[in-house]
């Protein structure tokens, strides 16, 4: 067992985990932050995407112990004081979801993409969301939502 401590959505959390515990499981099971979804559990689908020290990562492929001392932002940490984050707003406005299962990961990946590239071309959006799969194949509106997010963030 190992002790871990990390700042999640601005709040310091500590816990004890098995060394093999994945970050996604720690957040969901120990902290109750179930907005981070586990889809494929094989690093393909990106549903579990969150930000670790400001970079988008797949939390099903990171050990909780690796995140010791890190700053984590999950989908629950995006809205501030009841106001949706611009990327969340854009996904709502553009109806960029069908079943919604991939949406937290899509939103976190979009936020990561726009941090590096605030004005992505359509091709750059495809590339930027390469690590996220939508099983409903609702990509048209997702791409629109990324474009809308870029506008809202300006």
């Amino acid at each position, binding site marked *: 067992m190992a002790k871990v401590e990390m700042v999640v959505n601005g709040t310091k959390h500590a816990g004890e985990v098995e060394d093999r515990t994945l970050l996604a499981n720690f957040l969901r099971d120990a902290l109750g932050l179930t907005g981070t979804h586990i889809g494929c559990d094989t690093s393909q689908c990106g549903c579990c995407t969150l930000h670790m020290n400001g970079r*988008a990562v797949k939390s099903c492929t990171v050990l909780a112990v690796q995140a010791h001392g890190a700053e984590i932002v999950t989908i629950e940490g995006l809205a501030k004081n009841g106001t949706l984050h611009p990327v969340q707003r854009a996904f709502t406005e553009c109806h960029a979801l069908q079943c919604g299962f991939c949406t937290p990961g899509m939103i976190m990946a979009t936020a990561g993409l726009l941090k590096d590239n605030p004005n992505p071309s359509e091709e750059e959006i495809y590339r930027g969301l390469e690590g996220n799969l939508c099983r409903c194949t609702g990509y048209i509106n997702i791409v629109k939502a990324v474009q809308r997010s870029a506008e809202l963030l300006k």
Partner: protein
Amino acid sequence: MYAFSYVKAKSLQEVSDFLRSNPDARPLAGGMTLIPTLKARLAHPSHLIDIGALEELKGIESKDGALVIGAATRHAEVARSARVREAIPALSALAERIGDPQVRNLGTIGGSVANNDPAADYPAAVLALGATIITNRRQIAADNFFQGMFTTALDAGEIIVRLSFPVPKRAAYEKFAHPASGYAMTGVFVADTGKGIRVAVTGAGPGVFRWNEAEAALGKKLAVESVANLRVAAEGMNEDIHGSREYRANLVSVLTKRAVAQLAGR
């Protein structure tokens, strides 16, 4: 995942000592291959010693006509680095197309080279550029480093510290990426080193290899026409559900031509 003990390394010396006294321990850098491997129960290490944050393995610098990259440098850092872009733009472009953004944010160059996946991108650059692999024990020339599928010259307990890439006159990388995984179905890295042309092929065979016939032909004249009629034998190429060996052999020709065309434009 089988249970293991996690250790966070504080120095390179500690890693060397730890791996010597714990033969079933494995170093963990970005974990982008290792963690999925553990989850599939394809490996059962006693310990993981985390080298991902070691300062001794970090940094990108130019030194004596070479670009030196620390082994724990993430793919995204190589892709974004102005220094890499200026010295070897083909290397930065290669890093930009590995896997997906989340993988590039964690995966490391040293991990990729040490793992020597037959469809990984970096081995093609390391071999074509004639890089030197600097470990915690010695220096190894790229030509002696890659020894076939998932096999390298690294001994047990030996880890890559940094990679030194001689800056070429020009270089280009072309790959046909698997549309789902991003791995190279085939990738060809062509380098005009100033001392000759080197062509390295990844993804097509059981491990990265140099295509000597193409190198000889391009050495005479660096033009697409030099390799237009060259073919590699399909025998010995990889074959799986994604493509036959004939398909991959053809990709070697096509991508070599594209890489040379790209190079000629530089």
